[in-house]
C-alpha cells in the first residue's frame, strides 16, 4: 500500500483516501453536444508517467487535493490544495 502525502495531514496509507482520478474542467453545459460532454465524462489521458489527479482524504481531514503522481513508480512529486496553482517546476506536461 502506497503512502499519499496529504498536504494537510502528512503521509498516510492510501486506503484512507479516495482516488477521484484525473478529471478535467467541467465544460459549459449550454448547447453542449454528446461527443464533447462524453469526452468530459469518460476520456482520460491515463498515461504511464506523471499524472495530475484529485484525491480525497476520506478518513482524515476530508479535504480534496491535487497530487502529481507517477503511475509507474507511484512517486508523488507535489501536492497542492484544489484551486491553487501548480508549482511552476512541476508541470504535468513533463516526463
Amino acid at each position, binding site marked *: *500500500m*502506497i*503512502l499519499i502525502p496529504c498536504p494537510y495531514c502528512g*503521509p498516510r*496509507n492510501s486506503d484512507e483516501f*479516495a482516488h*477521484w482520478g484525473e478529471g478535467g474542467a*467541467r465544460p459549459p*453545459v*449550454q448547447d*453542449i453536444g*454528446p461527443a464533447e*460532454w462524453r469526452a*468530459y*465524462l469518460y476520456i482520460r489521458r491515463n498515461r504511464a508517467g506523471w499524472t495530475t489527479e*484529485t484525491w*480525497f482524504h*476520506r478518513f482524515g481531514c*476530508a*479535504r*480534496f487535493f491535487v497530487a502529481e503522481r507517477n503511475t509507474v513508480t*507511484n512517486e508523488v512529486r507535489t501536492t497542492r490544495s*484544489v*484551486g491553487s496553482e501548480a508549482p511552476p517546476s512541476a508541470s504535468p506536461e513533463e516526463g
Partner: protein
Amino acid sequence: MVTIARARNSTRDMRAGRRPGELIDRATSLGFTWNGRRYSGFQGDTIVSALAASGEKFFSRSFKYHRPRGILTANFHDPNCIVQVDDEPNVRAAHRRLRGGMTVKAQNVWPSLAWDIAAVNGAFPRFLSAGFYYKTFIKPQRLWPAYERVLQHFAPGGRLPASSAGGEYDKRYAHPDVLVAGGGPAGMAAALAAAEAGASVMLVEEEYELGGHLRYGRAGELALLADLRRAVAEQDGVEVLLNSVVTGRYDDNWVGVLQRELPNAGERLIKARAKMLVVAPGLIERPYVFEGNDLPGVMLSTAARRLVNLYAVKPGQRAVVFTGNDDGIAAAEDLGDIGTEVLRVVDARRGEGVRRAIGRGQVSGVELDGGTELACDLLVTSVGWTAPTSLLNMSGDIPRYDERAARFVPGRSAQPNVMATGGIVGDGSADELVSHGRAVGAAAAARAHGGNETGAPELVPRPHPALFRASTHGFVDFSEDVSSKDIFSAAQEGYDSAELAKRYTTATMGPGQGKLETVNTVAVLAEATGRTIAETGTTVWRPPYVPISLGALAGRLHAPVRYSPMQPWHEARGAVPLVAGQWVRPEHYGDPGAEVRNVREKVGIIDVTPLGKLDLRGPDVPKLLNLLYVNKWSKLEVGSVRYGVMCAEDGVVLDDGVTGRLGEDHYLMSTTSSGAGAVWEWLENWLQCSYPDWLVHVTQMTTAYASINIAGPSSRHLLGRLVSDVDLSPEAFPYMHVRTGSVAGVPDCYMWRIGFTGELSYEIHVPAGFGLYVWERLLAAGGDLGVGAFGVEAQRIMRLEKGHMIVAQDTDGLTEAFSAGLEWLVKLDKPDFIGKPELVFEHEKGPGSKLVGLQPVDPGVVPAEGSQILTDDRVIAGRVTSSRMSPTLGRSVCLGFVIAELASPGSVVTVHLPDGNDVAATVMPQLAHFDPEGARLRG
C-alpha cells in the same frame, strides 16, 4: 505395496551429553504421541529434535513418490518435517516447540508412515516425471472429474477436521523508524546501533531466540551472542519479536510481519510502515544434488550443528562429511565432540567428492568419487549458501550471480529506504558481521531521521567452489519431488528458461517456495542448456516469504457495526436483524404484514436513524441544492421541505431524499441510508473543487440524531400528546413542512411532515442521546391508539404499495432520471445542474425503458425480484425490481423496468420466473398501487 521396516533404532537414546548452547531444559520432560506411540522430550525441544533424540529418523513421505524422508535442515524450512499436530495441519515440526500432550501425526501417508500404499509410485518414477500431470490427464477433457477424484488421494497436506475449533487471530499496526528483518549477529548489531542513534526499532527474528548461527557456534561465538543479547535487552527503543517473520516488503516500506504462537492468538499479522528496512536474514544452506540425497540420514551441516548444539541430539553414529567450506569442518568437529564417529571429511577444495548415498529407507553408506564406499548412517553436506534476497527483490533489487562465491548476491539497486547487512551481503567473522551491522544500523537511523549517514565496512562473499550437482542425479526439490533429471528433460522439451522450467517441473513451487531449491534448479538448468548460471538467471522471489494462515490475513474484524440508540429496545422485543451496510436494523418484530395493517389502520413507529442527515449552513445553500438536485430549490421557504433526486454527471440517479429549510441560512438534507457517506463526499467535492467561493458548510449529522417515523391515521394524535410548543394542526403544519420543537420534553427536535409509507406521518429527528427515551415515550403515550413498532420490511411493503422507488433497488448504475419515471421532477429549464446535458440527451431521445407499476394478473403470484420481463418473441424487455404481497390490497404488487414499447398503461407483459414458469402482469397507469391521489398523506 512397498513397506519400509520401522526404523530399527527407534527406541535408541540419541541424546548427547550437555552442550554449552543447548536450548533444552533437561529437568522438564514433556510427553507426546507420534503416530499413536508415546514419546517424551524436554522443554525447549522441537517436535523433531525430541523424536530424533528418541532415535526416529523418518518424519514424512514425499509428495509424489512417497519416499521416506528425514531431517534435512532442522529448522522451519525443513521440507521433510511437516506434520499434523492435533487439528492443525502443515506444522513445521523441526521448528515448532514441543508441548506436553501433543498428538503428532505424519501427513501424506496412507494407511501409515511405515506402510504406505502410494509408495508404489516410487517404483515407477517415470510416470510422474516433469509435466506428467499435464500430459496424462489433460485429454479427454470429459474424464477430468474422474482423474481429479483419483489425484485427490495423492494430494499432500494435513487434514483440517470439520470439528476444528478454529483459532484466534489478530492484527496490529506499527510505525517503527527502523525494522530489522533477522536477529542474527548483524541484525542485532544493526538494531542496537539504530536504537542508540535514537531510532525506534523493531527487530524480527524467525527463531524462538535471537542469535542466528551464533547459537550453534563455538565458545567464542556463544560468548559474543550472550553479550549481544544482553545489550539488546538493555537497549531502550528496541522491540524484539521472536518466532516472527517478515513476510514481504511493499511500496513505501509497508512491511508485513507474521507473529506466531502468541498467548492470545495463533498468529498475528503486523502491518508495519517502516521508515527504513534493514534486511538481515543471513544465509540459507543449500543441499547438494546427487543420487540418494533424500535418504534419511543425509542432512545439511547446519542441520547437524543445530541438532548437536541446540538440542544435544546425535544425528548418527558413523558420519561422512562432504564439504566445500570451513562450516563443514566445524560440523565434523561438533559431531566428534558428542561421540559420533566421523569416518571421513570429503573436502571439495581438495578435489574430492561424493557420488551417491546408498541405502534403503535410510543411509547405510556413501560412494565417493573414485568408487570408495564407506558404511555410515549419516552423510553431512556443506556445499554452499543461498542468499535469501527476497525482501531486496521486493524492493526492486535484481540479484547478481557472483561466480567466485558461487552464489547470487544482492544487485545493490534496492530502494533508498531498504538496506542489507550480514551474510546476505558477504562473509565475515562474527565480529566483522557485527561491525557491518552496526554501521548499517547507524546509517538506517540517520536516513530515517533525514540526516547524514556513515559508510559501512566492506563485507564481501568469500570464494567458494561451485558445488551444485555430483556426477549422479538426485532431488532438486524435496517438497515437490523434482529431480535433476526432470529439469534436464524439461530443458530438452524446450522449457529452457528458469521461469518456464520452474512452472513445468514445479521445482521451487512447494512449501519452501525456493529457499532451498531455486539456485540448484537454476544451476542444473544451466548445466542442461550449456549456459552459465549468470546467463540463466534466477526466478523472482515473491511475497509471502513464509506461509501465512488465512486466519492471520483476515485477522480481527475492525469494521464498525452501527446500531441506533433504540437497539436495546429492538433486541428486547426480538426484532429480526437486518444488516444494511454497516448498520444493523430491525427487519420486523415477528409479523411484517400485521405491522403494515397497524400503520394503515392506526399508527406505527419505525426507527429510521440510519437515514443520512447533512446539516447545511450558509447563504449559498440554495445554489448548492440547485446544482445537485434535478429540481428547483430557489423558492423553498423557511419551514418547508422538498423531495429531490440527485444524478451523477452521466444522468444516472445517484440518491434521493428530502431537504428542509430550518432557518434563513440553515437546511437539513436527508439522504438514503446507504448513500449517506457518498452524498457527503459528493457535496464536498463540488464545494471544494468547483465552487470554493460558495459559502456553505456541510456537517454530517446522521448519528447525531435518532430518527423516528410516526406513520398512520393516528400519528398526529399520538405526536400531539408529546408536543406542546408546535401547532400540529393540518392548517398550521401542512404536508411537506418542517418544524422545530420539543418532543416529550426533549428540545431542539426536528419534525418534518412527509410520507414514505403513504400515510399521514411525521419524521422526527431527536438528539441521539434521547432517542430511546422518546421512542419509549411514544409507545407509552399511544397505547390506547394502538401504536406499535414496525420494521424495515413493513416500510418496504408500504412504500411499494405507494409506488415510491428505492434508489439502487428500483434503479441501477445505468438508470437515468427519465427512465426512473422522474419527468415530473427534472427541470430542464434550469440553466445548469449536475448531469443536465445527459438528461437533455435522454429527453430528446426518449428513455429506452421506464420504471412502471406492475400487477400480476394472478393476484396470488409474487414474482421474485430480478425476474425477467420478456417480449412475445421472448427477448428480455425488462425486469421486476421490487415485489411483495400487499396486505393492504390483498394482492401482489411490483415495480419493474420495461422497454418503452411495453410501458404504456394497460399493456400486459410476460414475467419469466426463476422456476421457469411465465406469468402475465399488467402495466399500471402510475407507480402507486394504493392511494395514487395521496389523500391519506395530505390529510
